[in-house]
């Protein structure tokens, strides 16, 4: 077998904080070039799982692989520079310009073409570099800030992006626009995405596959149509009903 098909894989990982088990033998596979969404309520362990892939959290048991290599054998800082990351609140450096924020990862990697890479990424994320690059984050709207965060995640051309509730803090219209931007982006870039969200509709829109988590365990791992057709548990069925119910009248 040549290169492994999975860009990201967690194999029976367990994470405990004291007596609290946050993840209980969780396994997830994200095939190369796909987008997998982890859906669950807060406290389900979805963010902890995401943070294992760039070694911000270490598992107590089990293993985590990136492109088939156990991350425990990789330097965390080097690993993180190869993986894009978009947090919920943008997490832009408030004292840095849009341009400098977008240049962050190429700059950390001493990439001489970081200015072009940043401009390119800003344009991809839907911001005109000529208009926005000199601005400070405080001079942007919430949606614009999140676009800068996406540009920052993509500027160094990572082939993996981790997104932790990337659009959760935005109003519905802005969220829709950014989701659209990301769908278009994925069509142009060969990028593997692990998306953490509590919003099943967002998962349906962006992801090829959905992993439903509950209390540190995987409840169901399936493509969206199968999830809707065959919910594996009453919990998944209830989650689907709540997320998609008010669409039903229009559908029927």
């Amino acid at each position: 077998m040549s290169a492994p098909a999975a860009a990201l894989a967690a194999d029976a990982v367990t994470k405990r904080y004291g007596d609290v088990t946050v993840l209980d033998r969780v396994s997830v596979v994200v095939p190369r070039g796909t987008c997998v969404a982890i859906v669950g309520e807060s406290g389900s362990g979805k963010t902890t799982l995401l943070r294992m892939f760039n070694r911000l959290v270490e598992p107590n048991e089990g293993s985590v692989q990136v492109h088939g290599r156990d991350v425990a054998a990789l330097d965390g800082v080097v690993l993180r520079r190869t993986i894009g990351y978009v947090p919920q609140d943008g997490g832009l450096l408030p004292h840095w310009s849009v341009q400098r924020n977008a240049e962050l990862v190429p700059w950390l990697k001493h990439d001489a073409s970081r200015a072009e890479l940043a401009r390119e990424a800003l344009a991809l994320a839907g911001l005109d570099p000529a208009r926005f690059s000199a601005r400070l984050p405080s001079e942007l709207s919430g949606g614009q800030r999140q676009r800068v965060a996406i540009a920052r995640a993509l500027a160094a051309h990572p082939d993996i992006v981790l997104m932790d509730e990337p659009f959760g803090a935005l109003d519905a219209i802005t969220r829709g626009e950014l989701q659209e931007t990301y769908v278009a982006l994925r069509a142009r870039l060969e990028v593997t995405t692990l998306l953490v969200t509590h919003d099943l509709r967002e998962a349906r829109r962006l992801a090829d596959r959905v992993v439903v988590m509950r209390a540190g365990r995987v409840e169901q791992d399936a493509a969206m149509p199968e999830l809707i057709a065959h919910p594996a548990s009453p919990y998944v069925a209830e989650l689907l009903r709540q997320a998609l119910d008010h669409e039903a009248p229009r559908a029927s």
Partner: protein
Amino acid sequence: MIVALGALLPFDPAVAQDERRPVVVASKPFGESFLLGEMFAQLLEARGVAVRRRLGLGGTEIAFGALRTGAIDVYPEYSGTGLLVILSEPARFDPHAVFDLVAREFGRRFDVRWLPPLGFENTFAIAVRRSTADSLQLRTLSDLARVAARLRGGFTADFHGRPDGLPGLARAYDIRLRETRSLLPAVKYQALAEGGVDVIDGYSTDGLIRRYNLVVLRDDKSFFPPYEAAALARNALARDNPRAIAVLTELSSRLDVERMRALNERVEVAGESIESVARSALADLGLTGAADVSDSAAARRGRDGSLTSYLVERRGQIARMAARHLLLVAVSLAAAIALAVPLGLALERLPRHAEQVIRAVGLLQTIPSIALLAFMLPALGIGVIPALFALFLYSLYPIVRNTYSGVRTADPAAVAAATALGMTGRQVLRYVRLPLAAPVIMAGIRTAGVIAVGTATLAAFIGAGGLGDPIVAGLALSDTRMILSGALPAAALALVVDGVLALAERAATPRR
């Protein structure tokens, strides 16, 4: 900073074993001690002995500590204080026995000698207003005990604490006052005259007792031990410079209590300068030539004239003291920044120990300055170095605290994202936490700077100069204008330092 140190240090040359090394003459911070110290100094100078003055050291512990460590050579002390405060022996009442005892014990234990007494005793004097004495028929301390429940006492903190002060007095006479409060020597007399209190402690040689027309109550049970004044000198001075000892001994038995009271009155009541009173006293005793008349006439202008003209007249001196004050603050603050900012940043990397370390630094803040100076005396002596060190210690806390909390609480989302995208801990500190914390750190430095301007007046207690000098001397002499000539420039300096550091704070704040 090195330049600044260079400017300060010439005042503090290393102790050389040179016979021509100036004799360091000191005093404690009250009028009579200032005057006696100045008389010692002028007499030595008149005999061709080089002198350096360290007048107004902050109390018995500091003056005696400085003498033991060789930072000073001689200062005026009282046998009773030596017995009770320094030797911690029980009180005795035969003056000769007390003097013999302290002379023997000081030589044996401290290698320090008492020169033959100056000729007068200065003991505590419990005083009341004449009207109080008349209406309540008060002559003696036993009389006071009878009516004490109706009277309020105002005593110096020193008198409140010492065994030969209020605790012993209350026990010996069964005096129970309605209430007592701690008063500074400078306000004690005024508080009594204006009826704020009814009984105060004074000295039997005080010039102010007569000025305020007070009645001193007779110590009919001989509670207060004798306090014979004498020069207290290092034995090393006798070895290195026997001539200095011989000169100082010329004053022995020459000052009786009447003469001393009259001299104190000129200083404390008439407001003549210490220098001119000392000069004319030495001349009157026939120890030096006649005092320069024009000089003493100038000094005799006393305390008339406005505060403004007083300040204008001394502007050169005030400017020099302010410059020195500022230098003390600048050097100690720079040193504190150099330690406290890196320490605060290091603690961010070791959050488990941070609170303990910061609390320990904060404890330094609670040490009273006199105690801190007395504690450092054996290692650092007196003068500029211990003053800088004390100011440095007092400046650490606000800077460490603000640095640590500034970097600790800097935009958590930005810190988390920067880490997740591959910044190392050091890079996060340097590029995210530190710039975001800069205004908070600067605010800490600003707090420390303003506090240091106020605290730097403590330098006067250990002869390091600055604007504390006129404050300490003015308090000792109850000279409001002299106090203000230090306090007003110090307040102005605090405002200037605050303003300058506020600009620095604004400059350090990143646009965001």
